[in-house]
């Protein structure tokens, strides 16, 4: 007895400090993954029936047949605008419809014409538009090769791993109804394996009424050694090969204390992979919301399965190649092949399919203070006062689940957060320009005294269990129901619950946080919902990875609606899918106060950025456990340069507001946060850009230096936009870091010392606790607001300082974007967007949106030109008038131009006196009406 007890204890203990792997499936424990992965390459039973080929202007259809069971599939092939190809494969005549993911694509992707180039009994060759791109469709076995010129960009089913489990009747039940039919079916049927009609994991059984329905397809990427994306995994930026281990898994799960550097599934899933080499970047978007596994292998042997037809284009046997295989449990095959060729092209291509990053309110890019939980109203006020007292800026304070009345979302704890006080408090907060976030999770307490529950139940909006009753599971409130967010009516109703008159205690400055939306079901299989739960016509199995996406969609819609469509929403989500970028921010879930978790925050957010989700952050300080003050400071310094900047902590950890670690650490944290606030104009402009183009805000270096192979696997440093390079200190007790400054012939300026460094070098930088190694690219212009105040809103009218970092060619370019910071009025052309460029010793400003109008009280008070030589004079040219400018020449390399805010300083001095005859016009007092002003040096 004693040894057993000990063993049990050991398991228990390890379970409390690290992920309990036994709670989550391996590929072997997931019947379809095991089944599919057992298939061997090179034995594809699929043949294209070329006689069924139909080609319209925009679409090619072709039947495929599985020679083993004679089941026919229908292949659809589209050439999409913007250099993409879409491949769709479904059963020709499925027993019942198979799930096709709705709502993720922002529109039916516009197509381009294709034409038939040649055809024989072995296959057909199609032209993909003008760029000498062709698709070769081989018939036996079926495969696709996408080529540009003589180069194969990507091959599909080249390893013959296409597998499409057709829907079928269950044999035992079939036999009862129709022995004859049974006989017929039985003959053509493959052998029945375990786990096809039901499956058990731990104590949970999955009834699988539809039987096997998995789909799988392989892709070969010749010349590719680096693939990225398919978040969310706590792994390196460069994806690893999965031979000999489990595939990367995409299945939204609430993983308690997740482990690092492995392919286990986490909270969100974006089935998008990028492939990159020095010549080209491509992408694969596997649009399937069921449980998905992705195998990656890198080999040269894969080439042997290439068809004869292609032999002549193959290079030497040393050509590297990456093979990728996607396996999903149900649905159809719907793949978008994004052909680049540049990284930015892939971003734009993917954005044209699923939309771009939501443009957040400016304040959401500032600092967020969170904790599970601030005990009560007084506690929140004390924390607010702490920031004020220690002069640390912040914009948002967050309330976790304890603020509710017994975990009933949309309500407030009557004792700790009485609603009358909440109104007073939020009003006070609006006076001091602060905002608040309250959590609203999708699990709804089953309680007949709870309005939200009663409404959802009476309207039939809950997800059903396999027997038709409301699905119930355990979560924070105890027994809970899960609203069916896939139902548009449900989403509309949910959105209406955020109206000010519905959501008691809510005001304009209260925003929302959706946690636990994988969904998390404490007593469900793998801590989530049973796959045989029912959403209308579909099983949960079909759309699991979409649930969190819909929760955030409905919530964001609610926040838009409550303001009559005027105000931008801000919603943070933990679970996500392709397209989630349209609805707000994500964070990397329940991390831990460990140095490795700080390090992993970089590749985790970089991976998300690559697949469109720019607004990403990790809990600063680490959620579980207690950070040392050194780790906490380093985490603030890192977080200040990542898109979503929020400190958060577990209920059981000691308090860690920034001022609790002695004056020195308080000062270090203050400085990190202030650097963030000074850079907010740049962050805001990048998010505007991300909103317009889908380009990531936080980028791996290879995105901007696609030919520099040294950068391809780099994930301890990153770029913000294209102009700032950040190498956070993530080592305990670090004395120095080695930053790689890319770009041959380029220069980089240390943003703190303005020291110039050459590109294309590994630069050793000694560091102290105050160091945050950040470099500005020579050739860029970055706007800052260096009058850092208590919150971003307080800084709204403050002047800008432009940092002009000259390239070796003495040129620089940058932008300035200004709007009201919180409404959708930018859609009504109410903004300022200017290009700033420095060339031939002239800094000029060009209006990028001449038809836009916006008036701001901000001005430019200072321009620093880094890497310049001393000018004899500087003149300001505005409206045809030439005026001499004040300038200083500093450290033999910096020109500082000064523009006191003459407009009002002359008038507003305390006592009346005539200022000397400085008659300049206030040339920048109204940025919105800038004409083509010039500074001439």
């Amino acid at each position, binding site marked *: 007895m004693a040894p057993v007890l000990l063993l049990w204890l050991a398991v228990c203990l390890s379970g*409390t400090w690290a992920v309990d792997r036994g709670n989550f499936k391996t590929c072997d424990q997931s019947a379809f993954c095991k089944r599919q992965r057992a298939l061997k390459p090179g034995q594809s039973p699929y043949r294209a029936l070329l006689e069924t080929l139909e080609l319209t202007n925009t679409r090619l259809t072709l039947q495929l047949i599985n020679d083993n069971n004679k089941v026919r599939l229908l292949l659809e092939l589209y050439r999409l605008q913007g250099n993409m190809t879409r491949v769709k494969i479904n059963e020709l005549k499925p027993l019942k419809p198979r799930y096709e993911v709705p709502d993720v694509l922002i529109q039916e992707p516009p197509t381009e014409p294709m034409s038939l180039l040649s055809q024989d009994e072995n296959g057909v060759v199609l032209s993909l538009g003008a760029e000498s791109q062709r698709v070769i469709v081989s018939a036996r076995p079926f495969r696709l090769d996408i080529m540009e010129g003589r180069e194969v960009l990507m091959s599909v089913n080249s390893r013959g791993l296409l597998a499409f489990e057709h829907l079928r009747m269950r044999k035992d039940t079939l036999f009862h109804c129709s022995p004859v039919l049974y006989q017929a079916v039985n003959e053509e049927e493959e052998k029945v394996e375990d786990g096809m009609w039901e499956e058990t994991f731990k104590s949970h059984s999955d009834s699988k009424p539809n039987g096997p329905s998995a789909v799988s397809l392989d892709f070969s990427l010749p010349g590719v050694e680096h693939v990225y994306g398919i978040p969310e995994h706590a792994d390196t930026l460069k994806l690893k090969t999965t031979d000999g281990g489990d595939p990367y898994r995409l299945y939204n799960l609430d993983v308690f204390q997740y482990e690092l550097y492995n392919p286990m599934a986490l909270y969100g899933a974006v089935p998008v992979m990028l492939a990159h080499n020095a010549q080209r970047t491509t992408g694969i978007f596997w649009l399937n919301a069921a449980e998905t596994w992705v195998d990656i292998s890198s080999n040269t042997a894969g080439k042997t399965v290439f068809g004869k037809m292609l032999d002549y284009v193959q290079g030497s046997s040393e050509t590297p190649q990456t093979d990728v295989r996607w396996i999903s449990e149900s649905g159809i095959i719907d793949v978008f092949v994004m052909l680049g060729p540049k990284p930015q092209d892939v971003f734009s291509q993917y954005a044209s399919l699923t939309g771009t990053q939501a443009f957040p309110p400016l304040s959401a890019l500032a600092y967020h203070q969170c904790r599970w939980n601030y*005990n009560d109203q007084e*506690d929140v006020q004390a924390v607010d006062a702490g920031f004020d007292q220690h*002069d640390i800026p912040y914009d948002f304070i967050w309330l976790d689940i304890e603020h509710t009345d017994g975990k009933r979302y949309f309500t407030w704890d009557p004792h700790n957060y009485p609603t009358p006080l909440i109104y007073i408090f939020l009003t006070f907060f609006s*006076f*001091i*320009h602060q905002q608040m976030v309250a959590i609203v999770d999708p699990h709804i307490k089953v309680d007949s005294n709870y309005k939200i529950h009663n409404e959802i139940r009476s309207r039939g909006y809950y997800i059903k269990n396999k027997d038709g009753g409301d699905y119930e599971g355990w979560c924070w409130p105890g027994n809970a129901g899960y609203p069916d967010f896939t139902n548009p009516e449900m989403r509309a109703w949910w959105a209406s619950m955020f109206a000010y008159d519905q959501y008691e205690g809510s005001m304009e400055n209260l925003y929302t946080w959706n946690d636990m939306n994988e969904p998390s079901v404490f007593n469900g299989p793998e801590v989530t919902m049973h796959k045989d739960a029912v959403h209308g016509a579909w099983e949960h199995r079909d759309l699991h990875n979409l649930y969190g996406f819909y929760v955030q969609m409905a919530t964001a819609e609610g926040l838009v609606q409550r303001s009559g469509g005027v105000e931008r929403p801000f919603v943070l989500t933990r679970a996500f899918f392709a397209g989630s970028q349209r609805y707000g921010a994500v964070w990397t879930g329940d991390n831990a106060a460990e140095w490795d978790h700080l390090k992993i925050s970089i590749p985790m957010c970089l991976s998300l950025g690559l697949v469109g989700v720019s607004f990403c952050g990790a809990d600063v300080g680490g959620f579980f456990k207690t950070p040392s003050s050194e780790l906490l400071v380093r985490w603030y310094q890192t977080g200040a340069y990542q898109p979503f900047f929020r400190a958060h902590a577990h*209920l*059981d*950890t*000691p*308090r860690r507001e920034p001022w609790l670690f002695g004056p020195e650490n308080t000062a270090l944290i203050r400085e990190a946060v202030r650097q963030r606030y000074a850079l907010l104009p740049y962050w805001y402009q990048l998010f505007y850009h991300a909103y317009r183009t889908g380009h990531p805000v936080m980028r791996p270096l290879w995105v901007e230096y696609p030919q520099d192979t040294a950068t391809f696997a780099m994930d301890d440093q990153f770029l913000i936009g294209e102009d700032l390079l950040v190498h956070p200190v993530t080592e305990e007790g670090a004395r120095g870091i080695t930053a790689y400054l890319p770009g041959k012939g380029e220069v980089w300026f240390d943003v703190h010392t303005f020291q110039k460094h050459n590109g294309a070098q590994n630069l050793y930088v000694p560091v102290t606790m105050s160091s945050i190694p950040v470099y500005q690219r020579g050739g860029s212009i970055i706007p800052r607001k*260096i*009058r*850092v*105040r*208590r919150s971003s*809103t*307080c*800084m709204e*009218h*403050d002047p800008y300082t432009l940092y002009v970092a000259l390239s070796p060619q003495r040129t620089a370019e940058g932008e300035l974007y200004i709007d009201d910071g919180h409404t959708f009025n930018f859609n009504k052309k109410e903004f300022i967007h200017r290009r700033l460029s420095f060339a031939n010793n002239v800094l000029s400003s060009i209006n990028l949106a001449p038809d836009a109008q916006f008036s701001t009280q901000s001005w430019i*008070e*200072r321009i620093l030109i880094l890497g310049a030589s001393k000018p004899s004079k500087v003149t300001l040219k505005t409206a045809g008038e030439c005026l001499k400018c004040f300038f200083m020449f500093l450290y033999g390399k910096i020109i500082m131009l*000064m*523009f*006191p*805010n*003459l407009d*009002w*300083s*002359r*008038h*507003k*001095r*305390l*006592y*009346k*006196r005539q*200022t*000397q005859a*400085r008659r300049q016009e206030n040339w920048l007092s109204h940025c919105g009406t800038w004409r083509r002003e010039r500074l001439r040096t």
Partner: protein
Amino acid sequence: MFCAYLLLLLGVGVSAVEVQRPRGVPLSKRQFYEENKPFTCLDGSRTIPFDRVNDDYCDCQDGSDEPGTAACPNGSFHCTNAGFRSAFIPSSRVNDGICDCCDTTDEYNSGATCQNTCRELGRKERESLQKMAEIAKEGFLLKQQLIHEAKRGLEEKQAKLEELQTSKKGMEEKVEALRTVKEAAEQPEKEAKERHLKAWEEQKALIRMEKDKAKMAEVFLELDEDADGFITVAELLSHSELDPDSDGSLTETEVQGLLGGADKVDTVAFETVWGNIKEKYISKTQADTPAPVETPQEEVREPVPDNDSEQYPEDDIPEEEEEEEEEEEDDDDPDEEDDKIPPTMRTQEKKEDDEGTMPPYDQETQNLIDAAQKARDEFDEAERALREVDDQIKSLEKEISFDYGPSAEFAYLYSQCYELSTSEYIYRLCPFNRVSQKPKYGGSETSLGTWGTWAGPEANVYSVMKYEHGTGCWQGPNRSTTVKLTCGKETIVTSTSEPSRCEYLMEFTTPAVCQEPPSLDPTLHEHEEL
């Protein structure tokens, strides 16, 4: 804009007493901002034309050229706050839309509508200061008293301690002396007792032998059925219990063997036979009556242990029972002993009954015993007294060892407890001992820490107490409590909170921290610049 300008001018006109100086400059620094003279940054780093002071552009690294604007990141703005305390605020709070200075001067261009609240604040502050001063005054008086009492108490305790230590010395000597006496008296006692016991043992052996002889004679008569003075083989044959090989039958040969090979034995020869058979022999007349069973042991078990558990069935025992004060446990002990005594005594009595009573000691021995007992009692008494004194000394030393503050003003808190009842819990602070929390509606008490140390800031160490190593938290640290002391007339716990998981904060008022109030000069609180 122009109107605002006019208003500002009006404002200047109204406060005619205002000394002209740039916005945001305190009176004390006015001389550095002389109109029409070039301005030198206060750190001496630069000199600039005066019109660049407060031109909303930061020229000086120390921020001194922009005392009235938000231009310098490290500058500060001075609010006069007439009617209240003047203050410096960071420059970043000038014109940020939030009213910071009660005289509204920080928001002159932000559009924020601020109201001058200085007079109101000043009045409130004066009132509260006054109140606090009164409390401090009374508290301080109380504190003097406490110090006085503590001093006296301490002196008393010191004196007591010395006295105890002296008497301890005497008692130790006495104990040693009595030990010698005791040991001296015990030696002859021991010898006399041994003598007595030996005589008694000899006598007992004699008695046993005679009893045996009588029994033998009795058996002889019983066996000698034909009363011929011989016991024959036939007469013995009916006693099957005497079967030497225990095979169930007693044969004639075996009987003959028992009789030493003879066919019959007389009384003299029977002596040898008796020696062989007496262990097994069962008298025919007694065989039917059962042999007496060992009853005494069963009787012993009955009363003692069950008694307790029946009175307090396990379920009903409140858990606190275990944690209750030690004195209460002491109370329980004697009862248990009482219960235990009678049965032991009874057993002894029984044994004596069986074996017959030892004759009383002879007078001489008894005298020796009495003398030794007396010596023992005296020794025990002396030793107990010494232990008591020792305990007292230890407890006094412990009490004196605590740091009761610079004037021992906190000494009165020793061995006291203060409670605060909240909606859920009763919190209990026993200074220099422990802090605990007990749910109001059932449930066990939780230790929130035992006395650790004074933990105030260096300048004011005696303003905070720290209690540590309380009950452990799940996945967390051991509970601990920080007690903040503030001046008050009464000694009470005013609030408790748990700002961080398992780290408690308690507010505690006591006169012991009251500082001597400065003499109240009402004009001091009016603004200096008015």
